[in-house]
C-alpha cells in the first residue's frame, strides 16, 4: 500500500509504466550480451540490463504488475544462500560467508564480493523472510479475498507478525549479534528501511486498504511492536516461544486500545468544537 499523498502521483506513474509495456521487451531480455565487434558504448548500454538494481523499482504494491526483481544477483544469491546454512553454527560472521563461498564451489576470497560483508548476509535473511510471507498468505487465510469482517485485519496482522517471527526460529540464538550489527551507524538506514518494508508488506497482506492518515500511524506502531517482539524473542526460552506470542498479543492489544482511545478523544473534540461554534452562531456571531 502507498501513502495517500502519493496515490495520485503513483497513478500517473502507473500510466507511464503502461506506456513502457507497449514497447516490446525483446531487447531488454536479460540474456543479451555479446563479445562481437561493436562499439563499447553499445556494449555498455546493453550490458547495463545484466545487472539488476539493488533496490526495488517500485515502492508500492501492485496487483497488476509482476513483482520487481530481487536485490540479489545470481552469484550473490548462490554465496549467500550457502552461507545462510552456516549461520546457526557460526552466526552472522565472515566465517559463515567464507564457508558459504566454499560450499558454493568458490574460493575463500570470493565471499568478499558480497556488498557490506556480514550485513549482506543479514539482509539476505531479512529480504528472504519478508518475501516468504506472501507465499504463506494463502496457507494462513485461505483463498477468499473480499470477505473482511471487522477485526479480521487485526487478526491477520497478528498471524502474519507471528509467522515472520517464526522465520527467526532457526537463527534466534544468533539474532542478538545481527541486531548489534544492524545498529551500527552505517547500516541503520538500510535496517530501518527493511523494517518499514516488512511492516508495509504485513499490512498489505492483511488486506488493509486505509488511505487516511492512519496509514502512517499503523505502520509506525506495528514497526515498534515488531521490533520489540523480535528483541523479546531473543531472550525467550519458553517452549514454542509461547511467552513471545503472549507478549505480541499484549502489545497489539495495547495498540488497538490506544487507537480506540485516541479515536474517542478525537470524536469528542470535534463534536464539542462544532457544537460550540453552532452555539456561538445561534447567538448571532458571524463565524
Amino acid at each position, binding site marked *: 500500500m502507498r501513502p495517500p499523498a502519493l496515490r495520485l502521483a*503513483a497513478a500517473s506513474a502507473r500510466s507511464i509504466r503502461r506506456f513502457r509495456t507497449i514497447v516490446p521487451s525483446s531487447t531488454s531480455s536479460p540474456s543479451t*550480451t555479446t563479445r562481437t565487434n561493436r562499439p*563499447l558504448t553499445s*556494449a*555498455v548500454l546493453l550490458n547495463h540490463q545484466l545487472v539488476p538494481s539493488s533496490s526495488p523499482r517500485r515502492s508500492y504494491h501492485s496487483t497488476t504488475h509482476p513483482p520487481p526483481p530481487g536485490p*540479489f544477483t545470481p552469484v550473490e544469491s548462490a554465496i549467500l544462500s550457502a552461507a545462510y546454512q552456516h549461520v546457526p553454527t557460526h552466526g552472522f560472521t565472515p566465517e559463515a560467508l567464507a564457508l558459504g563461498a566454499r560450499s558454493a564451489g568458490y574460493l575463500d576470497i570470493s565471499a568478499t564480493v558480497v556488498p557490506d560483508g556480514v550485513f549482506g548476509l543479514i539482509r539476505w535473511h531479512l529480504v528472504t523472510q519478508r518475501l516468504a510471507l506472501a507465499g504463506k498468505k494463502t496457507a494462513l487465510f485461505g483463498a477468499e479475498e473480499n470477505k473482511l469482517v471487522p477485526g479480521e485485519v487485526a487478526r491477520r496482522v497478528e498471524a502474519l507478525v507471528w509467522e515472520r517471527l517464526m522465520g527467526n526460529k532457526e537463527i534466534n540464538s544468533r539474532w542478538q549479534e545481527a541486531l548489534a550489527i544492524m545498529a551500527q551507524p552505517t547500516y541503520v538506514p538500510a535496517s530501518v528501511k527493511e523494517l518499514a518494508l516488512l511492516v508495509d508488506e504485513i499490512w498489505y497482506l492483511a488486506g488493509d486498504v486505509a488511505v487516511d492518515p492512519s496509514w502512517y500511524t499503523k505502520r509506525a506502531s506495528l514497526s515498534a511492536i515488531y521490533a520489540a517482539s523480535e528483541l523479546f524473542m531473543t531472550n525467550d526460552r519458553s517452549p514454542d516461544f509461547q511467552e513471545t506470542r503472549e507478549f505480541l498479543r499484549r502489545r497489539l492489544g495495547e495498540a488497538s486500545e490506544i487507537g480506540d482511545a485516541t479515536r474517542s478523544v478525537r470524536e469528542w473534540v470535534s463534536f464539542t468544537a462544532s457544537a460550540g461554534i453552532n452555539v456561538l452562531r445561534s447567538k448571532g456571531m458571524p463565524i
Partner: protein
Amino acid sequence: MAVLRPALSVPRALVQTSLRQSPRCAVSRRLLSSSSSSRSQNNNAPPTTPEYAVPDPSRPTHFGFETVTEAEKRERVAGVFTSVAESYDRMNDLMSFGWHRIWKDHFVASLNPGFSPLSSSSDPRSPQHILDIAGGTGDIAFRMLHTAHVLNANPSVRVTISDINPAMLSVGKQRSTSLPASQQAALSFVEANAEDLTRTTPLLTSTSSPSPVPPQEIPSESVDLYTVAFGIRNFSNIPAALREAHRVLKPGGVFACLEFSKADKFPLFNTLYKEWSFRAIPLIGQLVAGDRDSYQYLVESIERFPSQTEFRDMIVDAGFVVAGEGYEDLTGGVAAIHKGMKPR
C-alpha cells in the same frame, strides 16, 4: 519514490525504442542472439575478444583532455610516473588531506586477504596469491601483507607487485626494506604491462647480474585476488587489461579496483571537489613536486574516467559477475571500489 522511479525509467524506454530503430542496433542484436547461447555454455572464457579489447598502438585514446594513440599514451604515462615517483606518496597526502590512507585501509579491510574459516582440517589457512597491478610504491601490497600475515595469521599469502614503471617499483622496493623479513620474503616485484601479463620481468636491483632475465608469464588461473588501486585510469586499453585480469584469475577469484570516480550525486560537494582538483592540485604539484603538467594530467584523467555504472558494465563485459550494484562509493563517490568475481 513511487513518483520518481517510474518517471526516471521513461528515458530508458525511449532510448530502447530509438535503438531499435537504428540499423546498427539491428545488426548487433542479431549478433547477440548468436553469441548468447555460446556464452551460456562456457561462462568462463569470452568466446571472442571484441576488437576494442585488443591493444592496438595506433588506436586513438585519451591522455587527460588530449586525444593521443595508445602507444603515445603509454609513453606519456610512463613519463608522468617517472617524474612523480619520488614525491608520489607525499603528494597523495597533500592532495587528499591524507584521506587516501582511509580509502586504502577500507579497500584492504573489505577484501580481508588471507582470511580462512576455521574448519576441521588440520591447517585451515589456505594459501593465496595476490597480484597487485600498478602497485608501484606498495601502498596496497604492504597493507595486504599486514592483514594476511598479522591480523589473519596466514603466512602462506604471497603478493606480487606489478607495475609498468620501474621508477615506481624502485620506490616500492626501497620502502619494503622496512617490513619484517617474513613479509619481505612473501613479496615479489615484477615489471609488466597489465594488458599483457604473459611477459613480466622481475625487477632488477643494482646488485643483481646484468644479464637480462627472460620474461616470465603469469599463468592463467593462478591468482586469487587481483587488485588495482588508482592505476586503471592510466591504462591505454582498459578492456584489454580487464580481460587479462580475467585470464590470470582462478575461477572464483576476485577482481578489485579502487579508483577515482564521479561525485555527481552531491552537486554542491562536487563543485567544491572540482574546484579543488582543477585549481589547487596542479598548483600543489608545481610547488611541492615542481611538476605542474603531471598533476594537470592526473586531474584530467580522473575527469575522463568512466562513471561508476559505466565502469561496472565494462567489468561485466569482460566476463566478470558482480554482486549488488557492483561498486561501493567512498566519500560521496570521489573514489569507488569496484569488485567482480570470475565465475566458474
